[in-house]
């Protein structure tokens, strides 16, 4: 992976969430969520569907407004104004479940758009960085292809490259493999594992348990909008504390041919 200059450091807290509340009308989706993500660490959000994990990750770059609590990025509490979020979104990359490449633009145009038009960086510098990243993910030959010419897995890898080209300090992944054909899941997860090895700070919502076990420094287990359990990645999968987490892990376990 091309140099993602994230030094593993002295427990600097990159993102901090305190008493976050999110509701749609009377329906509370997230209740009193607090956690700290140190720089260079990978947090995995797990939980049954409807537990609020996708909503939570969308709150972390301002795509959802919150009704209470604070989110701080690099020590700065975010005031919640759209303008503030817009500035921070260039430092917080996000990849979504649905393929969100712009269909009318080529791979290269998709990748260059943010860095050149939003960040106003010089095009040749961004192009060099893009070519390096495309080579890393072995998609250089698709530089001038349109998204419709790519497989689902290739699209997601390009979407990740597009986010990385902004030089984010934090990456959010919202179920990025959930709509992929099974044979394409691996190439995307391997790319994410590679990022984690290079100490990219990441928050990941996923249903891929094996991947979660390998990548997570910390697992946050959510249910009904509350963090029920927080554990190291290893401990969560071997010794889940709560019955709910145990039941969840059992429900996610691969089907074994009856003993």
């Amino acid at each position: 992976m091309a140099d993602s200059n994230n030094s593993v450091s002295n427990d600097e807290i990159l993102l901090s969430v305190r008493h976050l509340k999110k509701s749609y009308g009377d329906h509370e989706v997230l209740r009193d969520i607090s956690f700290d993500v140190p720089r260079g660490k990978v947090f995995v959000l797990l939980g049954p569907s409807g537990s609020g994990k996708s909503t939570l990750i969308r709150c972390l770059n301002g795509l959802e407004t919150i009704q209470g609590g604070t989110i701080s990025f690099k020590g700065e509490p975010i005031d919640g104004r759209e303008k503030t979020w817009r500035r921070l979104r260039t430092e917080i990359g996000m990849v979504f479940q649905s393929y969100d490449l712009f269909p009318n633009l080529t791979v290269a145009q998709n990748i260059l758009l943010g860095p050149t038009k939003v960040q106003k960086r010089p095009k040749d510098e961004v192009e060099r960085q893009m070519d390096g990243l495309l080579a890393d993910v072995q998609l250089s030959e698709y530089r001038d292809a349109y998204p419709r010419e790519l497989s689902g897995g290739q699209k997601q890898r390009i979407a990740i490259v597009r986010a990385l080209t902004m030089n984010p300090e934090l990456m959010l992944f919202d179920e990025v493999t959930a709509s992929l054909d099974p044979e394409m899941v691996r190439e995307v997860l391997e790319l994410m594992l590679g990022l984690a090895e290079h100490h990219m700070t990441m928050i990941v919502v996923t249903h891929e348990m094996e991947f979660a076990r390998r990548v997570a420094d910390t697992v946050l287990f959510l249910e009904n909008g509350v963090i029920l359990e927080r554990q190291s990645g290893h401990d969560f999968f071997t010794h889940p504390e709560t019955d709910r987490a145990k039941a969840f892990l059992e429900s996610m376990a691969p089907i074994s041919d009856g003993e």
Partner: protein
Amino acid sequence: MVLSAIDSASTVLAADAGWTILFTGDNLTRLLGGLWTSVSIAGLALVFGIPLGVVLGALRILRNPVLRAVLRLYLEFFRIIPTLVILFLFYYILPREMGVQVDGETIAVVAFGLWVAAEISDVVRGALISVPEHQIDAGKALGMNGLQLLWYVRLPQSINLMVPATINLAARVIMTTSLLLLISVIDVITVGQQIMEANRMAHPDSAFWVYGFVFLLYFIVCWPLAMIARALEKRAKERNNG
């Protein structure tokens, strides 16, 4: 009976066929000139109305409730009130109330232009909001502001929906210029009526030929537009499914 009818019909044709009045004197040039007036008024109305409509349409996707209500009212005004009434309003009432003397052509361009803007604003709004929300999220996640989202995400992904509707509207505007004779603009129908009146005695059947010719002229202008719009619509549909 039948035979004699055919006989008398052919006598009329032989005597002095009605269609000849189309080519008598400068009648043809006058008719084409009238058509040109109609088409150029429609053209100018589109040239002013479309950009205005695009801006209004883009404003209509903003969340500002007051702005939305005002623009909605503007659209409904031009949609509910018959075009003829709008033309009369602009031609008879506004100049009298405001004390400005403007010729029929200018009035027509302004009235049609505002009508086009209203219709286009609805076309543009509909197309812009058809772009999936997750595409907008993807743009936001790259730090884009509202204008950048509009320019780089919404517009390029909805333009293929806007173009066919716009061409259909252009054809409608051209057809509606047939109302212009009512505000004393010398359009193709006015010219046709003048020709018929001048030849009432010599050619009692001139209405058939003159209106037939006017029909043909409108057809020649509007049919290609309809064809292009249909082809583009089909392409847009295929592209969306692909």
